């Protein structure tokens, strides 16, 4: 009786551990394999008996960069940076208003923003082409960034509002009692406290723009961003070039996410107990 209950107890622990391992392996293996294959020598990849490559080369990545990926990476970074600047310039004031003010229609407005976030933003790409042609924005990085901003804006508003709301109102009120006006209180108290969270939000905005492929592919022809470049150019290339492309695409996301890993979880409203 006692023995069997002990066995059951530890069996349960074992099952949990096994499940966790299975899940982690399932998620992580493709990452590792794709990275290994990106640097695998051609012979190792095509040899059926070598599962994990033995010989490594950076030739594929280099070849891809020479094919035009370098320019595409630069384009992607430019688009992402403009997107961050625009969406923060427009989104932070709105986020702050939602966090710190009580006003009529606040809930409906917030619901509207959330609703807009649900909107399938890729559908704007095709009609935007005609507008951009008229405005001379077609096939420009600014044009892509403008569209990406409309995708990132609701995210920035919602996240920044929760970050600002996380700064206790009393801190700002105390600053105002001790002689700062609202603007001063914002820049000297709220902003510094919100900065780490906002930096994380910027990182996620960057990744959002960096990863977006449909709008970028439709709106550009010669000034491709990296995903658009890969989608149109690299698909016809040999396998190992594709793996190199995958590696280049996930690398910055991985690095940034590692930097902001603390926020990767909290960004979604999860708190670990």
């Amino acid at each position: 009786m006692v023995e069997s209950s002990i066995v059951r107890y530890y069996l349960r622990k074992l099952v949990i551990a096994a499940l966790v391992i299975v899940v982690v392996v399932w998620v992580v293996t493709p990452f590792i394999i794709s990275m290994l294959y990106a640097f695998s020598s051609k012979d190792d990849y095509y040899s059926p008996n070598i599962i994990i490559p033995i010989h490594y080369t950076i030739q594929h990545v280099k070849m891809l960069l020479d094919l035009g990926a370098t320019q595409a990476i630069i384009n992607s970074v430019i688009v992402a940076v403009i997107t961050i600047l625009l969406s923060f310039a427009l989104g932070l004031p709105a986020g702050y208003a939602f966090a710190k003010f009580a006003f009529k229609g606040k809930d409906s407005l917030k619901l509207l923003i959330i609703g807009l976030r649900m909107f399938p933003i890729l559908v704007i790409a095709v009609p935007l082409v005609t507008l951009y042609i008229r405005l001379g924005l077609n096939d420009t990085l600014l044009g892509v960034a403008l569209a990406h901003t409309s995708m990132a804006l609701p995210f920035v508003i919602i996240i920044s509002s929760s970050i600002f709301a996380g700064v206790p109102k009393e801190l700002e009120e105390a600053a105002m009692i001790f002689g700062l006006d609202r603007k001063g209180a914002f820049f000297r108290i709220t902003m510094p406290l919100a900065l780490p969270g906002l930096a994380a939000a910027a990182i996620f905005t960057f990744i959002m723009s960096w990863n977006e492929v449909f709008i970028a592919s439709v709106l550009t022809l010669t000034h491709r961003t990296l995903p658009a470049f890969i989608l149109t150019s690299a698909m016809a290339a040999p396998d190992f070039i594709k793996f190199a492309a995958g590696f280049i695409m996930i690398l910055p996301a991985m690095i940034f996410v590692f930097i902001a890993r603390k926020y990767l979880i909290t960004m979604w409203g999860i708190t670990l107990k």
Partner: protein
Amino acid sequence: MVDVHLKGIVKRFGKTIAVNGINLDIRDGEFIVLLGPSGCGKTTTLRVIAGLEKPDEGRVLFGDRDVTYLPPRERNVSMVFQSYAIWPHMKVYDNIAFPLKIKKFPKEEIDKRVKWAAELLQISELLDRYPHQLSGGQRQRVAVARAIVVEPDVLLMDEPLSNLDALLRVKMRSELKKLQRRIKVTTIYVTHDQVEAMTMGDRIAVMNKGKIQQVGRPDEIYLRPANVFVAGFVGTPQMNFFDATVEIKDDEIILDASDFKVRLPKDYLPVLQEYNGKTVIVGIRPEHIYPEGHAPTTAKKLSWVEGTVDFVEALGSDTILHLNTGSMILVVKISGSHRYEIGSKVKVALDLSNIHVFDKESQVSLLYKRQRGVQ
């Protein structure tokens, strides 16, 4: 209904030890209270009994059944949670019926029992409501009804009254106690409130730092605290403590606190003999110190001390004096309303039959030690 035995329970969370070797025998049908400050391990102990936590060491026995590793559902326990844990998506009726449904009682039996429990707790008219339509006190009753409806072997309560307002708490205290007498279920009740513990418990187990400090009837805990912690934790205002040196001359025992001397009766000789010349901790409750003219006629052995009034708390029913005796403050509780001028001199008597002496090192009560030695 069943007796419960805890044998050497140890529970660690990472590096912190929440429960550090607890032994406790709880009798069948008894109402026992685990009393202690927050973080003393009382809730963890309760959760170990419930089966929600597995101890790292030790055994939990229900009767002679070892339940240490059994999941809660195989223990036939019930619990009232501090947060009540009333499921928000179920009506009151379904909340109370849930334990019965899980145990596959027939429908009529479920209905009968739910109505019985609801009536007992006077919530019959609430059965059709959702939890969010209830007040805090009503939710508390639902939680209790749900806990007793299965007729558990052991009823566990984790600070069930701490979320109620003061008036309701007093009312529920007596109601819960009466309810427990009626259904005679072995009850383990966790609280940090000494008044709850004193009024409700058949016995109290005072806990601190993961260990049981003393187990006993409420009056035992109050009159004969086992150590400085128990003495200080039970009773308001807190017991006065001061260091004193023991001097035994001929037949006389003198406790020399720097500000004053206390001449103890000879009864203390066997206890204090070996402490001659050493320092002990002396404790006396504020209600056992009487200003001139307030000493009850029953108090025979008194020792007088003079001090200056430092501060007065007028509570209406009681008056609390803070007396400065030179280098320390004696707190004195006088029943009734009295006026004292701050700065005035007052003579007070220590009731020597209610004095406590503790070992300076181990903080254990010398009187209690002797008692246990006699047993």
